[in-house]
């Protein structure tokens, strides 16, 4: 008996050693790190590992504030990485540095690619029309409205145009009662909000390739100035002065408290607002359009790519393919917050059929009214531009700089 047990132990040990030896470990670096999302990723990785016994995935989760630097450092020093989270702000840099694999061959043989949303397809091929990543999540903006606060102020319709939004904001603002209108964004990419008001006033923008680039910008167009003036009026007559220093947290706080019943945000704000306010006290409607009947969707995204020097590209692609399937991607975004990348998810996943997602679905399916256009992230003028804009915009709002001066300065900056 003892002999049998001893033989069994030896056999088991040898087997386990051989299994360990043949297992492939994939190093996966995430960058949009948050405790909740890391836990979600870990649970999905565990499921994948169970389905694929020969694969082990080592998730690396640096703190969000340092994650882009960590990704750049790891790639540039060829540290062992097989899967990397790439996002709109980093994809060009990684491609420039020759650190991402061209996924064309993999994507061509991937059947689920057919159901990618147009925005997701555009996101995948942002650089040189080559798919260097498979998007996992899409971020676009819509207007959040506290209908209860509007009703208390005698307003029963949600604004459809920028002009209406400004007018309603003027009407309900009453500083004596601490009632304001719009959850302003004063720092940390406030540019994405200012441009949303200015560019829909530019008629020619309908044909724009980029929101602006070195080839084409609209700062000196009279329409742009008109849109900026509407935006500044909104600040002066519908926002607490403190808004100049507001970031994401302050925006959410102002909306949830009811101080500002209008908020423009991405869908990942929905789970947070649901938690703080409850899902029934607000609506999400499409972005207000400009005088020419359109607005635009500046889509943000994050996705998965394979480092060019990875030795496990096939295995890495298999994991990316699994994560990017309509079912898994729907599950992932349902729990993370942004929009999924497959059209079918909006038809099959109950969560994304919910009332707060209807506006996003509408925006993505009406490109004539909500143009798909993004910043020229590939331009060398892009890094730091948001900080320059933020400083100038604050100066304009504080009366330290004329609007015309700022517009001329921006036009000069973007000139070739």
């Amino acid at each position, binding site marked *: 008996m003892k002999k049998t047990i001893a033989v069994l132990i030896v056999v088991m040990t040898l087997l386990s050693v051989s299994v360990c030896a043949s297992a492939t470990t994939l190093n996966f670096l995430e960058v949009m790190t948050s405790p909740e999302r890391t836990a979600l990723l870990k649970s999905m990785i565990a499921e994948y590992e169970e389905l694929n016994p020969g694969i082990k995935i080592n998730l690396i989760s640096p703190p969000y504030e340092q994650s882009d630097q960590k990704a*750049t450092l790891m790639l540039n020093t060829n540290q062992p990485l097989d899967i990397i989270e790439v996002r709109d702000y980093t994809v060009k*840099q990684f491609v420039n540095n020759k650190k991402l694999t061209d996924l064309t061959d993999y994507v061509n043989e991937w059947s689920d690619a057919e159901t990618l949303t147009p925005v997701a397809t555009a996101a995948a091929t942002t650089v040189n029309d080559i798919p260097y990543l498979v998007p996992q999540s899409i971020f676009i903006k819509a207007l959040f409205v506290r209908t209860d606060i509007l009703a208390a102020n005698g307003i029963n319709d949600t604004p459809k145009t920028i002009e209406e939004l400004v007018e309603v904001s003027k009407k309900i603002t009453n500083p004596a009662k601490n009632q304001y209108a719009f959850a302003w964004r004063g720092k940390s990419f406030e540019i994405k909000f200012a441009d949303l008001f200015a560019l829909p006033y530019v008629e020619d923008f309908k044909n724009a390739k980029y929101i602006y680039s070195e080839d084409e910008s609209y700062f000196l167009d009279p329409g742009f100035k008109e849109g900026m003036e509407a935006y500044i009026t909104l600040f002066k007559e519908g926002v607490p002065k403190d808004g100049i220093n507001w970031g994401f947290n302050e925006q959410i706080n102002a909306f949830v408290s009811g101080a500002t019943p209008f908020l423009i945000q991405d869908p990942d704000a929905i789970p947070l607002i649901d938690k703080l306010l409850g899902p029934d006290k607000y609506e999400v409607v499409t972005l207000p359009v400009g005088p020419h009947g359109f607005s635009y969707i500046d889509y943000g995204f994050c996705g998965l790519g394979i480092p060019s020097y990875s030795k496990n590209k096939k295995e890495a692609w298999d994991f990316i393919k699994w994560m990017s399937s309509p079912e898994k991607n729907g599950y992932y975004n349902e729990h993370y917050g942004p929009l999924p990348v497959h059209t079918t998810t909006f038809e099959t996943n109950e969560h994304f059929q919910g009332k707060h997602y209807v506006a996003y679905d509408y925006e993505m399916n009406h490109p004539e009214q909500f143009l798909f256009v993004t910043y020229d992230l590939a331009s060398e003028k892009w890094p730091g531009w948001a900080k320059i804009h933020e400083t*100038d915009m604050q100066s304009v709002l504080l009366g330290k700089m004329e609007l015309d001066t700022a517009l001329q300065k921006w036009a000069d900056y973007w000139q070739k």
Partner: protein
Amino acid sequence: MAIMVPAFVFLTLFVYFPIVKGVVISFQNYTLYDMTNIHWIGLDNFRAIMTDINFGFLQIIINTVIWILVSLLFQFLLGFILALLMKEPFRGRGIYSALVFYPWALSGFAIGLIWAWMFNGQFGIINDVLLRLGLISNNVGFLSDPRYAMVSVIVANIWYGVPFFAIMLLAALQSVPAELMEAAKIDGAGPVRRLFSITIPYIKPTIVSTTLLRTMWIMNFPDIIYAMTGGGPSNSTNILATQMINKILQFYDYGQGAAFGVVIMLILFAYAIIYLRISATKEDATI
């Protein structure tokens, strides 16, 4: 000799190599955006940061000087007063000391976030208290008004830095011989005279070294400002250290970021030499 090898290796690897590397980068076109195009560009990075139309160098220097001087002055004064109060034994001194020293244990970024909420112009507790006391009639935009933004970040920094002086000066105060104080008292010296003629001269080496160290740390400390205002509004709280971080995190420009680092290093180097020379001269004169 062999006993010095570990320290030498450690310093070379973790102190001198990064410094030299930083200086080298400040003379290079070195952006994360295009790491395949790193090359020497002479003094271009220094020229660029000094002539930047978006972030005026002179204003950044003035902001830095105000940030350091006011923070240091109040941190020192309040720390000294606290140390004097805690010198004499009293019941619960241990717990009281722990409470006083607590801010020093927190991260600068966390402190910035806490104070940003306290100074929030719409929902902040400071506005609420001032309104209830009738000291203001409308909310004050502490962090959105350039007139108050620098004051606000400095208040947070003072709160953070007081414990350091309290700890260091308390230790020094406890080394002042009791007999000396007794003798002065018998000779008729009042508390103010004893403070200026005995206590301060006695603990002067600690005062010199702590103020020197704190100046360097405050200058190199962007955390609070970065979390509270990001250098705004309209550059009103932008100091050398925050602009260095901006150049790296927002512009991906390590070359210009390193140039700011070199400027900070040179200023601190010059400051340390002058400061030590002045304090040594005064000491000689006293002797």
